[in-house]
């Protein structure tokens, strides 16, 4: 049977069983008739026919099975045939409309490309589980002090293991150049807790956490390859860490990096039993634990809080006060490591989603315009017997083909942009190395492409297949153009709305960035270069401690000799580099009891006398540090204005005394300096406590230099100067103050850059949309415009009519966008600085800009309307 007649039969419903029965029964009846004609009685004839036939029911069943299978195969083949035919037809009709195809594919490529790139980042950083076995069981436990972790491990029933770690930065030296790298000090079981075994060598043994053992180190795969050329014989060899020899016992597997992607070596935590309990707060230690099966983080947290009460009752020294007790939390390790990057990435992912919706709306629009132009074609096909579902299927195929082409182009866009995106990712975002176009990402894109193809194709397809055939044939292209245009206008409104929303968000971020950049940090940011200088800590240990003072004197003398350097000083840490920490202090006459709770000063810095003049923090009262503020002389300190005002509101801070939170001599305040933003540009606290280097020397320090030369040259000069002074002292993080500040705002910058980019794309797409709809409207209404002009309307009137319509569209879209923006202020609020999420300037300027751009976009169509010639327009079909 051919396809046509099967369809025809199919119209009545195909019935395989009835057909088989008909055929076989016909046979039996014919045979019985022949028997009757040869003289048998009717009943005998039937029986004889049945006997002659054999096993009727089994033959019948076999035929039914066979025919059903065949019908199914045929259906599938028909479907495939239709599909191939539809795809061919789609490609042909796209080739016939190259401008349409190009705009649609480019639009989709932008939308799909941005989404693919963003998904690859979100997937690698936030979604994909950590590269540890059963990573979902790993949790981060906060609120414990180091020694408590051991007790928690002993008492808790929630965890199969509890490990402790602390990131640290160490100087390594030896055969190659001294350098400063990131590492971690860990409890021996950290590797087994994470479920990682060494690529070669061994992990730490528990005894190696006790003092008095020989120093051991485990290298990351990266460090091992870079510094030791991947030679396995390094196991058992020595590596100088902070000037002390460490035996290399193991090499971690290549994909392993913990706690951060920059961690390059691990050394055991040494836990002196005598000092357990003396740690203040969490001491920078963090706890990772593996939950037992069936235990939820919330249950573990509940147990932890109960345990802490018990542990701190056992040993009151561990109780850091009520402020820390409530901090006891158990959260999935992944959440902890990804941290706040999660919010920003999801936000941006949502934003590209909106961009894709705009792209879809745009293509849907183009398809609607086309659908109207093709009404006659569709009507003809329906008249020729194409069913409605068949035509919808064909139109959908066309849009999916379009989406696929756009998707392929989009993958190219993504491949090109992922590297660029990763380049602007702030450095605190983890797991960046795994970002890329892999099968998960491509699978996501494939899904995205097919979905978008259906989303933007469905409405136009249903619309145009629902065409009233007769009217379309009679009226030419004017059939249901009115409703199509209304729908297209609605879509453009949505696009303009979404674009306004994104533009408002982007502008808020840009202005917030400006505000950030405009913050006066309270110190000089130009011509300042900083560098980290970290002599091995063993060098100035014990009896040698005071030798660091002449070392720094000599260091500064030589640095001042470098050409271009006009001033040089040393500080324990550079402002805004995340290295500055706070300290509990005693204040004479106000807080003296070290057993009671003491106030915190948020920033504590140790500096050489020249520091303030070098970095440009002016003196407000009293005096700066001098070279004679040294050991043996009275202990002195400087404080910032806020600090002075906080404790001595009457302005008489000079001469007052403060102290460290342990038994130690009082320190006299000899001067007050102006407030400076020390650890965050947006931070509100500017209470700083300064101590002179000579009285409180540190071995890890930063150079703060004023120089008018080139940074690169200065960096080289610094390295060689310091290498001459001491080969084992690494120099790292050579940077201008400006770039240190920029880095502290990297997160905001990244969000702003991407959001602006996406908003820009959204705007361009919105403008294309409004241009398309207006051009179409003018083309559609040629006759109407012609009539108006014949009745005396001027070309100016025609232009005004079109522009007015565009204005209504734009304003309606803007209204939608403003409402959406007002409703979503809380999303952006946390990312803004110095500007309200409902900033009136932004909320006024974006609509204005969009209105202007929309009018410009519709000017060309409007101009075309003025050129309508009434005579031809009236004749036009």
């Amino acid at each position, binding site marked *: *049977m051919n396809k046509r*007649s099967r369809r025809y039969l199919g119209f009545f419903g195909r019935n395989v069983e009835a*057909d088989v029965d*008909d*055929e*076989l029964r*016909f*046979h039996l*009846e*014919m*045979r019985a008739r*022949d028997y009757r004609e040869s003289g048998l009685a009717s009943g005998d004839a039937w029986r004889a026919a049945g006997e*002659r*036939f*054999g*096993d*009727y029911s*089994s*033959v019948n069943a*076999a*035929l039914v099975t*066979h*025919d059903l299978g*065949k019908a199914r195969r045929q259906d599938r083949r028909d479907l495939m045939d239709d599909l191939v035919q539809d795809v061919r037809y789609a490609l042909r009709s796209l080739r016939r409309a190259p401008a349409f195809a190009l705009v649609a594919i480019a639009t989709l490529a932008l939308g799909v490309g941005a989404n693919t790139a963003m998904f690859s980042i979100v997937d690698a950083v936030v979604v994909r589980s950590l590269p540890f076995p059963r990573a979902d069981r790993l949790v981060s436990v906060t609120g414990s002090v180091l020694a408590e972790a051991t007790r928690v491990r002993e008492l808790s029933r929630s965890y199969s293991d509890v490990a402790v770690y602390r990131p640290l930065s160490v100087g390594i030296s030896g055969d190659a150049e001294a350098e400063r790298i990131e590492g971690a000090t860990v409890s021996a079981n950290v590797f087994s807790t994470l479920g990682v075994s060494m690529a070669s060598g061994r992990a730490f043994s528990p005894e190696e956490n006790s003092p008095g053992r020989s120093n051991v180190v485990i290298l990351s795969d990266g460090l091992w390859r870079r510094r030791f050329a991947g030679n396995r014989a390094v196991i058992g060899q020595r590596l100088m860490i902070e000037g002390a020899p460490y035996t290399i016992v193991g090499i971690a597997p290549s994909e392993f990096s913990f706690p951060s992607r920059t961690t390059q070596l691990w050394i055991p935590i040494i836990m002196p039993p005598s000092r357990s309990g003396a740690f203040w707060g969490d001491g920078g230690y963090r706890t990772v634990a593996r939950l037992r099966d069936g235990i939820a983080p919330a249950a573990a947290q509940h147990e932890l809080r109960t345990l802490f009460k018990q542990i701190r009752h056992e040993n009151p020294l561990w109780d850091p006060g009520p402020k820390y007790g409530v901090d006891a939390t158990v959260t999935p390790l992944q959440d902890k490591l990804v941290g706040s990057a999660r919010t920003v990435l999801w936000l941006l992912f949502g934003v590209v989603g909106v961009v894709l919706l705009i792209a879809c709306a745009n293509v849907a629009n183009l398809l609607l315009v086309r659908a109207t132009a093709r009404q006659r074609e569709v009507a003809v096909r329906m008249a020729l017997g194409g069913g409605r579902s068949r035509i919808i299927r064909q139109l959908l195929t066309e849009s999916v083909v379009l989406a696929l082409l756009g998707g392929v182009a989009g993958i190219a866009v993504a491949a090109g942009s992922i590297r660029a995106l990763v380049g602007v990712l702030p450095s605190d975002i983890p797991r960046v190395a795994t970002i890329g176009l892999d099968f998960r990402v491509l699978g996501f894109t494939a899904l995205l492409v097919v979905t978008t193809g259906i989303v933007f194709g469905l409405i136009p397809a249903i619309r145009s297949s629902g065409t009233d055939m007769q009217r379309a044939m009679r009226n030419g292209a004017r059939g249901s153009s009115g409703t199509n245009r209304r729908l297209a206008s609605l879509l453009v409104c949505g696009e303009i709305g979404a674009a306004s929303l994104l533009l408002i968000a982007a502008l808020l971020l840009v202005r917030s960035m400006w505000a950030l950049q405009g913050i006066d940090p309270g110190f000089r940011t130009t011509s300042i270069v900083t560098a980290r200088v970290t002599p091995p800590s063993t060098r100035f240990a014990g009896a040698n401690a005071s030798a660091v003072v002449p070392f720094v004197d000599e260091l500064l003398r030589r640095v001042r000799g470098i050409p271009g350097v006009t001033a040089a000083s040393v500080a324990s840490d550079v402002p805004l580099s995340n290295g500055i920490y706070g300290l509990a202090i005693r204040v004479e006459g106000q807080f003296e009891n070290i057993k009671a709770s003491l106030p915190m000063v948020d920033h504590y810095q140790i500096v050489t006398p020249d520091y303030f003049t070098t970095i440009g923090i002016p003196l407000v009262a009293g005096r700066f540090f001098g070279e004679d503020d040294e050991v043996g002389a009275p202990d002195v300190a400087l404080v910032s204005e806020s600090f002075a005002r906080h404790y001595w509101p009457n302005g008489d801070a000079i001469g007052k005394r403060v102290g460290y939170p342990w038994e130690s001599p009082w320190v006299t305040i000899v001067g007050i300096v102006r407030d400076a933003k020390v650890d965050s540009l947006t931070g509100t606290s500017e209470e700083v406590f300064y101590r002179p280097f000579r009285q409180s020397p540190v071995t890890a320090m930063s150079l703060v230099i004023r120089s008018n030369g080139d940074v690169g040259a200065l960096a080289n000069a610094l390295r060689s100067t310091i290498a001459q002074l001491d080969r084992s002292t690494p120099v790292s993080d050579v940077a201008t103050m400006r770039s240190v500040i920029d880095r502290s705002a990297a997160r905001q910058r990244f969000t702003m850059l991407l959001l602006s980019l996406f908003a820009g794309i959204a705007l361009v797409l919105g403008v294309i949309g409004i241009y398309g709809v207006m051009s179409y409207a003018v083309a559609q209404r040629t006759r109407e415009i012609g009539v108006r002009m014949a009745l005396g309307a001027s070309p100016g009137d025609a232009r005004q009519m079109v522009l007015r319509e565009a204005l209504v569209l734009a304003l309606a879209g803007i209204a939608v966008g403003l409402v959406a923006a007002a409703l979503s202020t809380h999303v952006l609020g946390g990312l803004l600085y110095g500007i309200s999420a409902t900033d009136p300037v932004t909320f006024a300027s974006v609509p204005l800009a969009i209105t202007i751009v929309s009018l410009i976009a519709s000017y060309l169509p409007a101009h075309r309307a003025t050129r309508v010639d009434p005579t031809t327009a009236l004749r036009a079909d």
Partner: protein
Amino acid sequence: MQRESSELLQGTLAILILKALLAGSLHGYGIARWVESTTDDVLRIEEGSLYPALRRLEDKAWVASEWGLSENNRRARFYTITNAGRAHLRNEAVQWMRHAGAVTQVLRAAPKLA
């Protein structure tokens, strides 16, 4: 043994059906009747097996089928031989003749005494 003879029968049945259809399209009963009358009822087709055989031939595209009206105005399924079916029949016929000829020759040969 049983199986071999039924396979032989199947092959034979196919040849009979195709031969029956050479003259024109027939329904299943028509094919059965043609075989009966042509072979004087010597080769009686097992009628139940006729229809599965027709399905197999149709699957191989040696015959095609179409619903139509029988001589007594009943709805019946008519089978037609296709070009491929004709070619197949030609090949099978040649094979069959050669085979039959060889067997016949053997049977006619005078027995030689050892």
